């Protein structure tokens, strides 16, 4: 369960002054469901998800992840979360197994549990063929599988994906999509950000549309179609975002 309450993040830039990356964002993601955060580049998706994963601290507001406050109990939040993005790379000089073991240990797993968990995950993701190969020698697909194994090793109840398919070829992207779906089927709370409409249509139970750091609309795909009288998600997105986009460009 994720519950964001008035999340805001402001940065200070020497040239541009104060930048409002995220402004008063509130939403709720439930277990066994996928929440899709849809927005253009620079809309505030990554900042929002980084705050939920406690990598960044909110300037105002807070969020609760599995009941833990992201401001007050960041370490407990991180222990409940699996975070995957294109920016979460692997350590090139560790092997796939060492990489996953490292994160398992940091999550407090004891050695017998860790071994069993790794064996299970490596078998499930068909990773046994390259478990002892260094990460800098892995193909993109193998790297993604290792990243997935890294997020799964402590079996977190909440999964956060920040544009997980960005820049991936179609086959690797499909592996990720299948994995996100599997997380939902296992009853995990899933939130993921993207600007790819088809991914949202295929996956999301709830959609939040974000622009200039503000959550402009929220609902299921059906609810959004009804409300904006459009069938195509791209048209709905453009309808919602355009006035704010023009405003942001002008300012």
């Amino acid at each position, binding site marked *: 369960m994720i519950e964001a309450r008035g999340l805001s993040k402001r940065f*200070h830039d020497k040239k541009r002054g104060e930048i409002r990356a995220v402004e008063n964002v509130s939403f709720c993601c439930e277990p066994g469901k996928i929440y899709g955060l849809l927005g253009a580049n620079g809309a505030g998706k990554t900042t929002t998800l*980084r705050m939920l*994963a406690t*990598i*960044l*601290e909110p300037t105002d507001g807070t969020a609760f992840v599995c009941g833990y406050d992201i401001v007050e109990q960041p*370490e*407990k939040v*991180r*222990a409940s*979360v699996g*975070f995957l*993005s294109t*920016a*979460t*790379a*692997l*350590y*090139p*000089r*560790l092997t796939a197994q*060492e990489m996953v073991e*490292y*994160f398992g*240990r*940091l*999550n*407090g797993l004891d050695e017998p549990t860790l071994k069993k968990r790794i064996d299970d995950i490596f078998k499930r993701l068909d990773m046994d063929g390259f478990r002892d190969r*260094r990460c800098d020698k892995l193909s993109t697909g193998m790297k993604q599988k290792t990243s997935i194994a*890294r997020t799964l090793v402590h079996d977190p109840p909440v999964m956060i994906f920040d544009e997980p398919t960005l820049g991936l070829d179609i086959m690797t992207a499909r592996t990720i999509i299948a994995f996100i779906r599997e997380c939902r089927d296992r009853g995990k709370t899933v939130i993921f950000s993207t600007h790819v409409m088809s991914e949202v249509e295929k996956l999301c139970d709830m959609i939040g549309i974000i622009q200039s750091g503000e959550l402009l609309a929220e609902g299921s795909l059906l609810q959004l179609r009804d409300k904006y009288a459009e069938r195509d998600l791209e048209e709905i997105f453009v309808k919602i975002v355009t006035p704010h986009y023009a405003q942001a460009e002008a300012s």
Partner: protein
Amino acid sequence: MSLRNVGIVYKKELTEALRDRRTLISTILVPLFLFPVLFVGFGAMVVVFVGKAQQETPKVMILGGEDSPHILEGIKKLEKIEVVPAAPNWKNQVINKEIRAAVEIPSGFDADVAQEKSDLVKIYMYENEIKSSFAADRLEKYLKEYSDNIVKERLAAKNLANTVLKPFEIKQQNVAPPEKAGGAALGGIVGYMVILLCMTGAMYPAMDLTAGEKERGTMETILSSPISRTHLVLGKFFLVLSASLATAALSVISMGGSFWTLQHFHAFDSAQSGDAAAVQLKIGLGSVLSVFIMALPVAVLFSAALFTIALFAKTYKEAQSYLTPMTFVVVIPAIAAMLPGIELTPKLALIPILNVSLLCKDLIAGTYHWNYISLIFASTCVYAAFALFLAIKMFQRESVLFRS
């Protein structure tokens, strides 16, 4: 749990460091081979080149003296000197190293000597040019002997003893034990090398674990794990410190080995030439160990400071451009300690790097000023603790970790 996490990070960073060629070169290869190359190799090179220069028969020119056959013949008969005919461009020939020196005999020199008049004999040479110096030294030595003989003859003619002009002899005699004499000669450079290597050992891991991590995109990965940032910094810091200490330890071992080798060669050479100065290169094991102990807080200071600075960089290259000037910041006070006459004072004992470098000079010489040792150890620990505190604080700052 917390110590366990620091240990987990340390172990992982160690695994990665041992697989990184750049870290291995700066931590192990450089300290192991730098001292032998510097002391033994360079020392041997100097011996070879100086020996070659000494063996050469230099060409010298005699200017004037046609009316003084006595001194002229004496110079011409000198061994290991080739007298070439005088030429008007003698000065250019010295500068162009065609001849090594020229000696000018004033006109009427022999007659003046006979009449007990004083004359000036000039030797023209190329200053700081070793072969020219050797030639000039040989000429000067002969002329001094010539002058001494004339004095002796004149005294004998007047029935006076030599002691009339030389009432007593003067000789300098070393009373410092061999370790102390060796320390005075080599202490400065030992401190300088250990300090410099402590820094180079810390430099690459410090960059790799901060800017390198940002560049490879693994910073966000590790920040998403439950480990606290303080524990993460400590785990990384201990690895940088280990690299710095390993470099210092290996440099001390290599230094000891180099001295031992040098001492044996030197003792062998001196035994052959009858030179009693062989013992001057002796350095005690205790001195070397105490230098290493003093290097501990310095290594902590460097590790934390370099870690903090490199943390600001977004890429490895950027970190390099920040840390390279740091080498000068370290080298200048370390070199200052080698200035002749500079010694520890309470004020200098508080200046980081310079204080340890100065102390190393004393330690190598086997002199233990406990007041200074404790003051320097304590002050360096305070600086080191501050640098580590700063590193932890900077690692908490989003503007540093996610600088764009």
